[in-house]
């Protein structure tokens, strides 16, 4: 197993009085794809958003336990600095209403890079990294919104790469895409894992099976509190689950 990139210890999260996720201890290895699967409302996205502290935006959120990036406490880091190290791709492509170039250059610019040649280089490398360069290289001034859904999502990936993070969080990145665009995103994830640690939340178990090295299965009961049931190599989760609930879920016994 690779070095540990992200880690939680006895981590719980509350929205006001609502106990959203309970006592999760998980070690996410570096430069691997870790999928988080489980039914709706089991706290997968909330858990994912712990690692770039997107939950900070929601009023009344309280956490217990530890969350670590490279062994450092996430909650005592500067949140802006943290988000430069941990990028995120959202469920719905959310390019800014700006040109393709300005979308990719946004992150470097807010981090203080303004030299044109440096930006040009970052934009090209990032778009190549997101397998979008060949499709857009002649139209960098075109609005990001004019691209197709799948291209928009790859633009958002390029935008995340431009900040040079070491971790990329993906919250159901292909949920709003057609099968062909989904396939391209999945291929891209397998390329990106050469250099990045990727954590992906997905509803689609086949997708988890195709793209991930490790899988964490989250589950919840009537209490709506999300718990970690099982974490293991993806092939083990899919071929030899240790927990009955995992087995029921991956064999489709839950609706």
């Amino acid at each position, binding site marked *: 197993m690779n070095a540990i990139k992200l880690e939680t210890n006895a981590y719980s999260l509350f929205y006001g009085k609502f106990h959203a996720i309970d006592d999760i201890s998980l070690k996410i290895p570096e430069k691997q794809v870790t999928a988080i699967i489980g039914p709706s409302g089991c706290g997968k996205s909330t858990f994912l958003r712990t690692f*770039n502290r997107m939950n900070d935006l929601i*009023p*009344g959120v309280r956490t217990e336990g530890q969350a670590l990036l490279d062994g450092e406490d996430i909650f005592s880091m500067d949140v*802006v600095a943290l988000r430069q190290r941990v990028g995120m791709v*959202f469920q719905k492509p*959310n390019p*800014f209403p700006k040109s393709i170039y300005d979308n990719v250059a*946004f*992150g470097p610019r807010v981090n203080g890079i303004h030299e044109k040649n440096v930006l040009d280089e970052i934009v090209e490398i990032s778009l190549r990294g997101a397998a979008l360069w060949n499709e857009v290289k002649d139209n960098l001034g075109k609005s990001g919104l004019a691209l197709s859904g799948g291209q928009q999502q790859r633009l958002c990936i390029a935008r995340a790469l431009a900040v040079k993070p070491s971790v990329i969080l993906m919250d159901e990145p292909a949920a709003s895409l057609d099968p062909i665009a989904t396939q391209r995103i999945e291929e891209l994830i397998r390329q990106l894992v050469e250099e990045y640690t990727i954590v992906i939340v997905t509803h689609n178990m086949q997708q988890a099976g195709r793209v991930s090295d490790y899988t964490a299965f989250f589950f919840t009961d009537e209490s709506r509190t999300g718990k970690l049931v099982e974490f293991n190599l993806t092939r083990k989760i899919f071929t030899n689950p240790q927990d009955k609930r995992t087995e029921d879920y991956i064999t489709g016994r839950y609706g």
Partner: protein
Amino acid sequence: MSEHEITPIETVKIRSVSASANLRKRQASQKVGFGLFWLASLVVILILLVVVGYVFITGFKSLSWDFLTTAPKGGLSGEGGISTTIVTTIYLVGLILVIAGPLGIGAAIFLIEYQEQTKTGGKFVQWLLQAANFGVETLSGIPSIIFGLFGYALFVSTLQFGFSLLSAALAGACLVLPTIIRTTQEALLTVPVSLREGSLALGATRWQTISKVVLPAAIPGIITGIMLSVGRIISETAVFYVTLGGSYRLPKSLFSGGRTLSLHLFYLAMDTNAFEKAMGTGAVLIVSIVIINLVIDLISRKLSAGVRQHQ
């Protein structure tokens, strides 16, 4: 399932009979309903046409290029044109926007973007935010003459600004602040959360997110608010009646008084027998309001097109 199991043939019969009888009735009431709506909108359009038509027809004789470009000469017969009042109106609009624009937009940004601090911030911040929100709501419902009297008491007499552009601009700023704050708040709220998250997730600070992503996306809405305020200032009389004085001469400094178009209209109608000139002035006012509304319409159409594109 068991409770739905009624003998099938009978059910069908009963349903079909009652449905068609009912259908005629429903269609009839729909016709009556639509008829009433039609009538209502017709009446509204008629009233509008009568008012505008009356003003234009009576004011038509006095409308000319000369009327627009010569200064009023005062007197019982209301000699002269309206040039200085047009200029004064423009001065006042500019001044008020310079004061109320940044203040209102800033307040709206604070109220929306730092809203969660009402829950997480200290007691004092919470209290401040609630007070501000409540204040905006209350201010927008206050009759304008109260802003006028307040302006008179504070700016004209206490601060010794006199009947002047400055007093009128400060009082007018209080008048349009709620409009600017409200429309800016609404414009900020139409910017999708996903854009804010996208920016924050790239390591942008909150201020960078607001200034580089949220504000540019909200600009059409903010401009709409500004244009609404311009309309409000142009048509306002009460506030300026008690703060701007009534001189028909061109103001020379911030401390000279003056007349806006609508104030001039008021004076013409009350103090002179130049009724046609009052109506001519009214026609000019109506035209400028129509132009402003067309601009707002254009902008908001552009805005909604932009939002649609994003969804």
